[in-house]
């Protein structure tokens, strides 16, 4: 099917059209990159390549409105697309630009900002990272200390950001900076778009527990940023940030991945090459997890239903984030138990999409331990599970 032919609106036919495209477009190497994904991100280069292929097909940002290069798909179609991509083991590109910044630019950006930044985001040409947390400001984000002071038409930025995913690959960073120290913390924050090539920026990567590098610390020393790169009004950055966090938490379909994890558990339970547990009670725990995944899936559908009707999911996005991540951790635990001893080898090189040799782990369990290790981060990033519970307590229960 070529880019100009209209997609069928019927769900089943739409699914087949997506599936046909994926089977044509995904190379064996891209599929290997997808299969060997152990966190939110696939191999960087594979992800970038895939984003470019999607963009050429017109599917670079399915969630965006048509006028900005989106697809105009309804929620159901977007869900199907995501599901089919996962099923086909497509790699996951770095999505901070598309999922987080893009919607903020559309909502708060000036016409020239939209024109300047959106095309590079959707094509994958400009990779963006998110500069929120600081060493002294984690859950208490509003206490952030990185400053941006006026100097003529520019801001001069000083300070540091931490847990900046993929900063070492990024071309740009969107940052929360302090522009007024005299007012209460939330009221003195602005949202700045900064070119990572600007002099004065250095990036220090961290090796994560699984041996890979995703997290970085970014240092800013007298970094000059044109005031044209301010998104939203000065000192209104907190409004942008909160809105963005809801995008980060909402719109996610956790159950697509959860179902995939559980089907892997079931494959291992009947595997002859890596059946890691002889525990007769294990199957009961898997079944209970399956039921919890069904409950979450129905909840995601319920929220999607209310979105279609034009309601705001609001704090329900926190409910889905807590349940989705904690259930993901539960599934990751089931996976390492199902894999048993076969999950102990630590061979980073086999995770490269180009690697096609043998492994010390069983082929089913190559990614299992890394997935489990990385699952611990899911209840920390994007607002910890504790922060989400406080949001629910405040905004849903009125406590």
């Amino acid at each position, binding site marked *: 099917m070529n880019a100009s032919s209209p997609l069928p609106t019927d769900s089943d036919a739409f699914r087949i059209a997506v599936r046909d495209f994926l089977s044509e477009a995904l190379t064996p190497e891209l599929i290997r990159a997808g299969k060997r994904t152990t966190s939110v991100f696939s191999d960087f280069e594979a992800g970038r390549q895939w984003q470019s292929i999607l963009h050429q097909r017109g599917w670079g940002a399915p969630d965006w409105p048509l006028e900005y290069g989106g697809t105009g798909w309804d929620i159901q179609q977007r869900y199907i697309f995501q599901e089919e991509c996962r099923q086909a083991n497509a790699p996951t590109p770095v999505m901070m630009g598309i999922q987080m910044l893009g919607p903020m630019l559309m909502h708060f950006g000036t016409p020239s900002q939209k024109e300047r930044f959106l095309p590079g985001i959707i094509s994958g040409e400009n990779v963006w990272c998110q500069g929120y947390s600081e060493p002294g400001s984690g859950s208490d984000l509003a206490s952030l200390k990185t400053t941006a002071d006026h100097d003529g038409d520019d801001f001069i930025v000083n300070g540091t950001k931490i847990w900046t995913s993929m900063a070492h690959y990024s071309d740009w960073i969107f940052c929360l900076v302090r522009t007024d120290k005299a007012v209460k913390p939330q009221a003195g924050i602005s949202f700045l778009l900064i070119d990572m090539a600007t002099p004065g920026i250095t990036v220090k990567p961290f090796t994560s527990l699984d041996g890979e590098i995703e997290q970085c610390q970014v240092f800013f020393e007298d970094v000059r940023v044109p005031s044209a790169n301010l998104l939203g009004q000065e000192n209104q950055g907190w409004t942008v940030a909160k809105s963005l966090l809801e995008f980060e938490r909402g719109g996610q379909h956790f159950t697509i991945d959860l179902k995939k994890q559980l*089907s892997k558990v079931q494959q291992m339970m009947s595997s002859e090459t890596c059946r890691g547990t002889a525990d007769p009670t294990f*199957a009961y725990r898997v079944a209970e997890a399956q*039921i919890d995944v069904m409950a979450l899936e129905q909840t995601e559908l319920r929220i999607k239903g209310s979105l279609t009707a034009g309601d705001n999911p609001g704090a*329900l996005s926190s*409910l889905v984030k807590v349940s989705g991540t904690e259930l993901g951790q539960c599934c990751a635990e089931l996976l390492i138990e199902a894999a048993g001893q076969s999950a102990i080898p630590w061979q980073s090189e086999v995770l490269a999409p180009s690697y096609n040799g043998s492994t010390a782990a069983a082929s089913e369990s190559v990614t299992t331990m890394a997935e489990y290790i990385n699952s611990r981060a899911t209840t920390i990033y994007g607002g910890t599970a504790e922060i989400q519970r406080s949001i*629910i*307590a405040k905004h849903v229960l009125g406590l």
Partner: protein
Amino acid sequence: MTMTEEQTMLWDTADRYLRDNADFNQRRDQIAKGIYNLPQKWQAFAEMGWLAMPFPESMDGLNFGLREIAILAELCGQYLVTEPLIDTLTVASSVLMRSEQAAALVPDVITGDLIAIAAIDEPTAESRLSPSSTLSQTESGWHLQGKKYWISAGASATHFAVLADSCNGLAWVLVAKDAAGLSCETFPTHDGKGGANCHFDLPINDDQILLMGDAAAEALSAFRECAMVVSSAETLGAAQAALDTTVDYTKQREQFGQPLASFQALQHRMANMLIQTELTRSLVYAACDAADRNAWDRGRFARAAKVKSAAVGRKVTQEAIQLHGGIATTDEYIVGHFFKRVTALETWVCSKGEALQEFMALDADKIASVGPA
């Protein structure tokens, strides 16, 4: 999954009626007097058409489905209704609806004069699927022999729909509570529903045999699945009400000079109660929607709802007691009654563990027939 206009109307009407007429203190008085089914309330249920819900329009019924029954069940949980509403609706929609013999009785069921309660429990849990009670053929007709114990809402029954084993397989037999040869002992129950233990040793005529053989087995299967969903819905209503009560209470109760609700340790536990209750809600509604789909889907969702609601109902009502403190351990305070009702619902017709086993068996069947997903 959202409610239709008709369903919203049903919810609003039922909610209003129960708010005005199912007051907690009145319930306590009623139970203290050994009244589990208050005649004027039961009459009102009938007049509002609730007892006619499962029957087709040709029988003067409303032709409503599981979703509508679940709406009433959810409200029964919220208002701690002791009247045998979900009990009769479950029997009506799965057993009476399938029986030609029952057709003549339907008008009495709709007016509330005939209250048929399922009698399936015997001293061993296995008997809920394969009863020891027997229906045997005699020269002049049939004879029912056996015992059925711990029949929830049995105290309110005018009739029992008795599950028995016969020469033709399973059978559902309708026996009037005052029939000669039926000795029935009624007793109070922790959840206020009022129960019964019955010994049957009596002749049965053909009219009383509602279903036999495959039809009876199908009805048992439908009865169990209906009960799983309905008990999940009632548990959901009770859990939500326990949570709401807890939130209100912790906002008002002060210790250390501030409301309990201001303590983060308690806030997060209430957030968990909400998360789990909402997840349960999604599954209960999904199980209602699945009622029109194929047997595998329907059975799987009913069991999933049962497993989830039983676990969540237990946890949420236990937490509700803990977050209240001493007051919740008293009979005069409402929260403990939600706890007692969900505990009774846990084992009604099918336990959480049984539902989980059956859920796994359904998946295993599927894998055996089509291979892993």
